[in-house]
């Protein structure tokens, strides 16, 4: 084994040299990584460009599509291509624990008490509330569903169902549909019997499920009639409504979470990062962002500034009454701990008939 390591060293040296050559241009402009597509277009209009104009700081953009691989690579190679990145809570927590993200100095940011409590964390500033809901095509459906349990009612709605590929969200949905209160979901999931119970509940709809991987697939399938009911990101559904599709949402049992800005440890433009993040927490801007994308503001005043008609399709207020907060500490701990084991089990389960 030692010998392999020794023989590999020259190879690594070559690879490192190539890496250095390709990454030689170090002093780069302030770089923001977000989730791409029309979503990032909207962010650019509301946040990036106005920030650049106001502060005189030029910016570059990149796309981050979730997962841990990029951060692992940053740790291993020391190459930091981004300054600020928008991450989901599980990556935020892991990155904070592993020292990938800067522990924030909140004195450089918006006063904490003005933000939603869940949007204030050690390494992240919550920038929007997103959610997944049950959606359907109101033009073609026989009867409008009203609750999460209806998703499991295969008598009234015998058609196909769209769900997100993987165990996350689905296990939670299954338990809530099985009568577990949102507050107890992770307590139940933390026991082996709870996981068995969730999979057993999923068994009931499994033959009807068509699994999606990209958020855009759910509204497409609903509009095309491929599925009768689907789990979907609420923002994707409101976007489809804008395109004239008559897709509607059921807010009962919604799972919502917060995405946050994080500054990457070792990044060259950290001050610009702080200034930018502070800029994006402006309540007026957050409220105007909801016009482009139906995700909720994280600044308390921002919530109040949203047009009431628009607020009906946002993950905020009454819409979250029966919802589950998927960004809670217990949720994150559960998923960072069990992601791999449950993904293995899920991959096995999904291939069985």
């Amino acid at each position, binding site marked *: 084994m030692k010998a392999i390591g020794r023989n590999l060293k020259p190879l690594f040296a070559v690879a490192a040299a190539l890496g250095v050559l390709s990454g030689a241009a170090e002093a780069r402009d302030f770089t923001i990584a977000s989730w791409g597509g029309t979503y990032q277009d909207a962010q650019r209009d509301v946040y990036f460009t106005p920030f650049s104009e106001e502060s005189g700081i030029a910016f570059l953009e990149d796309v981050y599509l979730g997962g841990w691989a990029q951060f692992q690579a940053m740790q291993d190679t020391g190459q930091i291509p981004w300054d600020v990145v928008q991450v989901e809570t599980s990556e935020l927590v892991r990155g904070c624990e592993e020292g990938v993200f800067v522990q924030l100095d909140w004195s450089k940011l918006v006063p904490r008490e003005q933000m939603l409590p869940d949007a204030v964390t050690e390494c992240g500033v919550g920038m929007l509330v997103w959610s997944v809901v049950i959606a359907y095509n109101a033009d073609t459906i026989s009867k409008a569903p009203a609750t999460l349990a209806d998703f499991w009612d295969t008598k009234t709605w015998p058609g196909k169902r769209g769900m997100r590929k993987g165990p996350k969200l689905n296990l939670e949905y299954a338990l809530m549909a099985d009568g577990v209160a949102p507050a107890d979901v992770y307590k139940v999931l933390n026991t082996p019997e709870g996981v068995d119970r969730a999979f057993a509940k999923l068994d009931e709809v499994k033959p009807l499920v068509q*699994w999606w991987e990209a958020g855009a697939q759910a509204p497409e399938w609903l509009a095309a009639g491929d599925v009768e009911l689907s789990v979907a990101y609420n923002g994707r559904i409101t976007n489809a409504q804008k395109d004239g599709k008559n897709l509607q949402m059921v807010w009962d049992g919604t799972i919502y979470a917060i995405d946050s800005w994080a500054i990457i440890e070792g990044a060259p433009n950290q001050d610009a990062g702080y200034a930018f993040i502070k800029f994006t927490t402006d309540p007026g801007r957050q409220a105007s962002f909801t016009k482009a994308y139906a995700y909720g503001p994280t600044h308390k005043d921002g919530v109040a500034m949203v047009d009431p008609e628009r607020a009906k399709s946002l993950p905020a207020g009454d819409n979250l009454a029966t919802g589950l907060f998927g960004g809670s500490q217990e949720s994150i701990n559960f998923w960072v*701990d069990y992601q791999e084991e449950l993904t293995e089990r899920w991959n096995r389960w999904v*291939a069985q008939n």
Partner: protein
Amino acid sequence: MNAPAGIADGRKAGPADRSLEAKLRRAERRRSLNAFLLVAPLLAFIVVVFAGPILSLLYFSVDDPKLAEVMPRTAQIVDAWDGAELPGEEAYATLVEEIRTAYKARTVAAAAMRLNYEISGFRSMVMRTGRKIRRITGPPYKEALIGLDERWGDLAYWRAIKASAGPYTTRYLLAAVDLQRKWDGSIGAAPPERTIYIDYLKRTFWISFWVLACCIAIGYPMAFLIATSGKRWSRFLLVLVLLPFWTSLLVRTAAWVVLLQNEGIINDFLLYGGIVDEPLTLIFNRTGVYIAMVHILLPFLVLPLYAVMRNIPASQMRAAASLGARPVAAFLSVYLPQTLPGLGAGCILVFILALGFYITPALIGGAADQMLSYLIAEFATRTGNWGMASAIAILLLLSVAALYPVYRGLVRGGTFRFG
């Protein structure tokens, strides 16, 4: 390098001869140096982009430095411990101290993540211990630590630390074939909910096998038609084969999504023609995967076959017929054997390429139609578990390597040489 034969044998070498000999030798040396320099870029290229990654893949699949980096002394103590019963006070004291330092330095999470591979839930247990470690102010550390979390008194968790002590591990390679190493070093089956990899391997081979079978059924007659029809026709047919070949894999896969979906062209056509009443489900299932993969891989079978068939004179079949062979017998004993080298080459190309497919099953298949590459991508990009990703990649690599003798058997006696 030996001197050319004419100079070396027989004649006594005078001074003039010797200088000629030296000159020749020098020229020879220069020539081989030139030859070497000519292939040097290729050699360097192969080392850097082929051998290097494969070696590092092997390395990553056994490399296990995380715990020993973060908690070197604990790793050392636990490595020496026999694992039969709970370790002594020294191990607990060292662990407490190293968690304390590592928690402050924000390095403990990486080690905790590694421990979590052994027992799910170990990560948050270490992190919680790190948060509360301030409460432990002095000995006895064993009781104090168990007081923080009673699982520290559970043998299974200490054995997990022992298994992670590094610096090398076989856990990823074993897990990739549904095995695990027990704490005492014996190898046994992994728990049933976690045995998925052999199933994925079987499915990968199964799908590849059927894709190959379909490719042969469609490709052989097609190659025959191209090789035997008139010049204009054969050129036209060849373009039909090559045109999709020149299109990117992703584009072709996306095109199949458009064609196969419920409101896609194929279903519209079938519905319009009254052939079916309800749209057929052609996508997000195995059928769609077969259709798209066969289409994408067909040229790899047709082209080598065509190359061989083109050189078989049509007169041979006529000669066989004139000697009294029926068409089937003539085909089986005259034509088919001559196409075997091309068929063998085509089959091995199609099968090996099919084993590594990722994009097509990911976009067209359902959750039950994914192949091994899907798992590699999941580990590499989503969870960042490179050890596991490398181990599965090696599993795939070995199964391809195992096919080489099969290929040799397939074309034994044929004139074709692969590589």
